[in-house]
């Protein structure tokens, strides 16, 4: 028996939801605090200068601190919203984009409005990379040790290693682009301060502009209560921003009383029903499904 019935839904409000995760998040930071931290970034010409200023303010900071001085970031975490790479912050101020980046944002918004979206990285099981890593969903785990901190996410099984043993970055002559860059840091009390360079030129997300190899960032990570870690990030990339851009992201601890949630390895090819391809229009589409034995030899659309 089949019947069709009219219904009531919230579909009319979905149009603006056809955008990246990043732009959907609601800012949670007070506008005055956002403004203060945003303007703080404007005082420094480069991320390195900002990092050194924070280090000076921390009287050099601590490297290799004993375990007893390190914060407890154990448990599982997930992103809980915050700022965007291109949308205005809580004070209503948006990034000063380069003309190329502004055009890319406009084009991305037009595609999103048409319901067109393809993820050049994640759809093909590539890494989200950094700084997109800051905004991706799903579980995270943070491993804090004196000589390094691991910031991991289950999305394509990634780990950012933050070296706090006093080492510097490789020399510019020896540096090479990396998905997550090269990160060094120091501890300012219970706050981890990170400088990241050696980032790869690539898309910052679905329908988002392209970051360049010139991008460098500074982050501060701090647990502000038992269930919340806050990351402040200043992004310097002359290919996208005419002035450094600041955003704050929050991470909430995930309830896991029964201990069933665990960081697991995952691969996009694990289940053939998850295989997608890019359509000629630039959209995302599933390949032939394998729901029944007769589906076993699909006529796959061209890649």
């Amino acid at each position: 028996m089949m019947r069709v019935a009219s219904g009531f839904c919230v579909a009319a409000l979905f149009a603006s939801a056809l955008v990246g995760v990043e732009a959907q998040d609601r800012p949670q930071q007070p506008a005055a605090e956002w403004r203060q931290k945003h303007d703080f970034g404007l005082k420094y010409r480069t991320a390195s200068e900002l990092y050194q200023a924070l280090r000076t303010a921390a009287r050099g900071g601590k490297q290799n601190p004993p375990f007893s001085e390190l914060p407890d970031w154990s448990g599982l975490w997930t992103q809980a919203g915050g700022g965007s790479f291109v949308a205005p912050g809580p004070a209503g101020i948006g990034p000063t984009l380069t003309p190329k980046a502004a055009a890319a944002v406009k084009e991305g918004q037009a595609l999103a409005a048409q319901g067109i979206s393809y993820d050049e990285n994640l759809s093909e099981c590539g890494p989200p990379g950094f700084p997109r890593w800051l905004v991706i969903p799903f579980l995270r785990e943070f491993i804090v040790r004196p000589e390094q901190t691991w910031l991991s996410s289950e999305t394509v099984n990634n780990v950012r290693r933050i070296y706090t043993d006093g080492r510097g970055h490789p020399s510019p002559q020896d540096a090479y682009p990396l998905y997550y860059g090269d990160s060094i840091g120091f501890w300012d009390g219970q706050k981890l301060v990170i400088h990241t360079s050696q980032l790869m030129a690539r898309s910052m997300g679905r329908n988002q502009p392209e970051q360049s190899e010139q991008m460098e960032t500074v982050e501060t990570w701090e647990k502000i209560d038992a269930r919340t870690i806050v990351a402040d990030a200043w992004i310097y990339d002359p290919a996208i921003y005419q002035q450094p851009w600041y955003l704050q992201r929050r991470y909430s601890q995930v309830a896991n009383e029964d201990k069933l949630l665990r960081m697991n390895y995952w691969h996009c090819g694990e289940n053939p029903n998850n295989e997608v391809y890019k359509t000629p229009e630039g959209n995302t589409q599933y390949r032939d499904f394998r729901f029944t034995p007769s589906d076993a030899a699909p006529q796959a659309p061209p890649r």
Partner: protein
Amino acid sequence: MSRVLQIAVFGAMTVAVPAAITYAHHSGTMFDDKKQVTVEGVVKEFQYTNPHSWLLVDVTNPDGTVTTWGFEAEGPNTLLQAKIRRSDFAPGTKLTISGFPMRDGRPAAAWTKAVRADGVEFYPRGRNPGIQ
């Protein structure tokens, strides 16, 4: 007898703002979040996999043939947070299941709700999801 309930829903004004579905591996634009499809059937297989899971449901059509529908959800850790375990949908479980259907008409949907024959309800994307 199993049956198919195809519920076409169109845009309407409401004050409720849905929680957008998060698609991290790929975009969800292949699903039409302006429509809901609901079918009654029997679980064939619960593919509890990353980065997306698929609940395969055999649905008997009016002419007696059987169509296997696929209902897509996020991976196991997201399902566990929605209180959906693999054992909740063993093969042979009778249920009514809903989702946003594929735009191209294939028998698949972004899973939004399931009600087992014992009356237990499951919401893999919360109670008021939207596509993102």
